[in-house]
């Protein structure tokens, strides 16, 4: 499978916590998206960014309604263009080994469309529309958003903060299995 030892340095290997062996798999997946852009030798930490269109075309992400938000959250520039680091981060958070709090943190960021560290009503509306393919009527969307904020908002400021979100996630037993992409 090629000369593995020259792809990453030891420190780089330590930094990537995806799990020994699977980051090679991820590296080759990353490279397969654009073989001409990504070099085989990463020891010099080349500055390579893959555009969002390539990331969004991966089979694991291509049908996910939240793929754009996922790419934006994990990319350095916030536009969805990902370096290898970002790519590995993304799949490590979405793997089964990531702790619950880490997943909840990133889930919060994904659902926070306007990046203001709060999930407000407009973020909820966008989430709902993505979840149901815009099939709910406006009244229904409003009703559901009100209900969600009623249920989850602990500090009563009309929007969900990270703590509210995490508190609510703790009550969902299947969050760990649904917030998981197998690669």
């Amino acid at each position, binding site marked *: 499978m090629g000369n593995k030892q020259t792809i990453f340095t030891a420190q780089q290997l330590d930094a990537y916590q995806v799990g020994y062996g699977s980051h090679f798999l991820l590296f080759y997946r990353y490279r397969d998206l654009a073989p001409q852009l990504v070099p085989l030798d990463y020891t010099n930490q080349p500055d390579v960014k893959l555009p969002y269109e390539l990331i969004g075309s991966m089979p694991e992400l291509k*049908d996910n309604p939240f793929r754009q938000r996922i790419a934006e959250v994990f990319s350095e520039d916030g536009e969805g263009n990902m370096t290898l680091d970002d790519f590995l981060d993304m799949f490590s958070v979405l793997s089964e080994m990531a702790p619950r709090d880490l997943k909840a943190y990133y889930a919060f960021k994904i659902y926070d469309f306007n990046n203001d560290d709060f999930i407000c009503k407009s973020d909820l509306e966008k989430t709902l529309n993505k*979840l*149901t393919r815009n099939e709910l009527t406006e009244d229904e969307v409003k009703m559901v958003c009100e209900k*969600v904020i009623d249920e989850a908002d602990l500090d009563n400021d009309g929007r969900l903060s990270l703590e509210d979100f995490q508190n609510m996630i703790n009550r969902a037993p299947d969050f760990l299995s649904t917030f*998981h992409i197998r690669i």
Partner: protein
Amino acid sequence: MLLFMLLNVCTVGGSYFTQIELNMMTKSSDVVKNDIKNNLNPFNIFKTHKTSPLTLGLYSWNFGGGVQSYFLFLKFLVILNFVSFLLIGGFVLIPSIVFNSLGEPPKLESSGNCTIYEPNPQGLVVFYEYFLHLLSGTGFIEYSYMFYGYYDNTVVEDSSFSYNIPVAYLSTAVFYFAFCEYLLISRMGKATRVAVTTGGSDVSNYSLIVFTGWDFGCLGGKATKLKQRNIYYRLQVDLEEERLKKHAASLTMCKKVTLYSLRVLSFFVALGLVAAACYSIFEATKFSQDNSDKEGILGLIYEYLPSIVITAGNFLVPLLCDQLALLEKYSPSSTVIVALLRAVILRLASLCILLFTLWDQITCKGNQNDDECNECHYNYQEYPCWETRVGQEMYKLTLFDLLVNIALLVLVEFPRRMVVDNTSCKLSQWVGRQEFVVPSNVLGLVYGQTVVWTGALFCPLLPLLNTAKFVILFYCKKITLFYNCRPALRTFRSTSSSFFFLAVLLFGWIIALVVMIYSVAVMHPSQACGPFRSFDNMWQIVPNSTYYLPDVTKEFIFFIGSQAFSVPLSALSCVVMCYVIALASIHGRSVVMLKAQLKLVCLSFFFIYNQMFNSFSCLMQPICYP
């Protein structure tokens, strides 16, 4: 640091109160298929499972679209039946086989008033008739270990060993019932415990659906669309309930009266439908019993007439009641509960009517002075060995149930799927693929198990037959789920369903217990066959046998049966019951209080954290507005 500690507290507290409600349809169908393949092979019953919260959730099997819980229930019933068979086999079947092979095989009397019984067909038997006999429980099967009539009243007494087959038969039957009750109650206890600890299920419905409803592992356009529709329907159901609640609250007096009178009317119509079904079962059973001596295929159809009518009724009446439900305008979850209740009442009532008709025929309507029942205390002309006849009816019901399921699979579900997949006309797309409807399937299992419990006294090998039947059913349903069914789009939330189905199973057990107690204590056993042929009732063997026990044991047993013991015992059990009820209500209340406290603690910590954060960040800046 504070945030970290706080997160830990909330995580620990949150997971203690984690709702173990799993909606299996949120998982992509591939995951469910893999889970079923790996975990639910009935022969993997001895594999230990990892006790992750997910698995615990599975085994506490709250419903909500629980296809997996159906298969777990089926697995539980397979184990129950298999262990029961081991019991019966070890204490009744194997000793009988041993004694029959060592001594003489059971002989039938050929003279006497009530003691002539000729089960074997006379003369030449055409080959295909063996198959007909197998299906109807007559012929070579009737006088075999399958039914009550073959067992003898053998009493073996040696210097070092003694074995009394009638006592063994009776006590095995009693112990079998007690064992099933124990398993059932312990399972109900687990379900209740879960319901008490998790409290109400309606807390944070919407937020959980919105934030954790999406399965990120969902692959492919089709699965994604399905998932989206599923979430849409779940939200719709909850919104519909809200709307109905608001609508019901805003009705005028006049409209309320109309609605309630409509509901009362449809209740009576449903009752009428059930009564009509019961009457047709009564007539069919009488007709079948009267024409039980016909031969050939026609005879087979007459034999199966009660089963056919029962199955047809169980199919038609719920269909008609569904149409009634459109008038009643209950909320979606209430509609489901009402439909389930009606289906349950129909099934149990049809079984009761069948048993009543049989009793009616056997004991000449309970009138011992009737011409036909005068001599032998039961209708000897029609039923020389009435226990075998009752056993045969239960045997036929079980067999017919299995045959209908297999026939449905082969003749309805596979063709339906092939038609839907390969034709593109609008009608087939509208009809669509089969949905795996969990409640009616579970009710079918409950009904089958009740039939087996009722018939176990008269047909000792029925639990073994039922084990085989449920194993076949498991694989058939697995095949149909994977190849023919689409995942249910509409998943109705009903956390008490698991408890409800166990309660129905318990109710079926009670019916079977009543039948057993009546047969043992009141009915006169056949004088021509069976281990109790020389007694006035089956229970009499117990007092007779106790005469041979040593004095101390006799005294002890008489004391237990007397009032001096039973009255204090019942008083004590009332006290214990009250204590347990009080304890349960206290625990429930403390759960609610602790939840509220946790919320308060979290809030106050967040407040303190925010204050501290603000003050620290304030100190960092030259000018600060705390």
